[in-house]
């Protein structure tokens, strides 16, 4: 087997594991809140049944929190489902705004995630034929580095610039200097190359660019 392909497959699995771990963490947090809200409701009804004041406002807050967290859970599971199905087809037409939105949401589950400002282009969404899995990996790695670079209180901007030839440029700007590592590393550049994309810092190291072609005829 070609060693480059073998390596990239391993990278793919690492990516899958990292994202799933962060989703499970998010779901556990949601369940923990629901558990505490239900527990508190139970505590309050127990106290009321023993003759103490009926704390209606607090009970309403608990119920509302449970409803909100269930919605948050549904949203998280929907994203998990979309992410899981991105491996169904090695090559697929994808809407770049949707892919970026999904990756921004999933990277947002990381404990060190900062804020992201994403302004989708006003013109129609760029649709490209690519390997969704590898593209997601590339975007996710870029977001992780961007978060590290600004710290949890920082903010980065993600922009999408459709090019005249049908390709698209994804830009991560506002990067800081807090990350202890350099990016992109050789493995990241190889992942980009496998879908004929290019990744790199611009001159001042505060902006990271990914150039994605409109079509990938075959994947390396």
């Amino acid at each position, binding site marked *: 087997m070609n060693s480059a392909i073998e390596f990239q497959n391993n990278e793919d699995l690492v990516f899958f594991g990292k994202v799933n771990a962060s989703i499970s963490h998010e779901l*556990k947090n949601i369940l*923990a809140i629901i558990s505490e809200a239900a527990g508190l409701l139970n505590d309050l009804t127990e106290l009321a049944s023993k003759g103490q004041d009926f704390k209606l406002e607090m009970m309403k807050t608990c119920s509302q929190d449970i409803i909100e967290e269930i919605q948050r859970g549904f949203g998280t599971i929907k994203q998990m489902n979309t992410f899981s199905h991105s491996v169904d087809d090695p090559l697929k037409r994808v809407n770049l705004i949707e892919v970026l939105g999904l990756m921004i949401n999933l990277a947002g589950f990381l404990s060190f995630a900062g804020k992201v400002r994403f302004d989708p282009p006003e013109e129609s969404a760029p649709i490209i034929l690519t390997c969704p899995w590898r593209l997601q990996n590339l975007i996710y790695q870029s977001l992780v580095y961007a978060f590290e670079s600004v710290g949890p209180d920082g903010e980065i901007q993600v922009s999408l610039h459709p090019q005249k030839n049908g390709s698209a440029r994804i830009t991560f700007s506002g990067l800081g200097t807090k990350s202890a590592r350099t990016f992109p590393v050789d493995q990241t550049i190889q992942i980009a190359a496998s879908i004929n994309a290019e990744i790199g810092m611009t001159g001042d190291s505060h902006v990271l660019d990914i150039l994605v072609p409109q079509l990938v005829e075959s994947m390396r």
Partner: protein
Amino acid sequence: MKVLLVDDEKKFAMMLSKRLVLRGIDVDYVYTGEEALVMAGNSRYDVAILDVKMPGIGGIELKRKLSGLAPGMKFIFLTGHGSETDFEIGSAEAAYYLAKPLQIEKLIEILHEVTA
């Protein structure tokens, strides 16, 4: 017993603290490690319940800083992760390491045990 609860999941911290208060435990809660250090500088706590994964100062680092401020303080870690590695690190650093969602009675039992 005075407890400091630190968790960046705001609703979780607020509701858990209310449930502990209903069980007679004196609790202050904050959402960040930075706030916890300020609180520990102003008050004396017997136990700190710390979320392991938090933005900024994480639970493990916070425990070390709080230990420096208050050498007698006991620690219980909370986590939503629960990986083998997390468990090993957490167990080495604190008296107890609990995975979310919590069982409140188990937490109460542990609080009494570490402060006995």
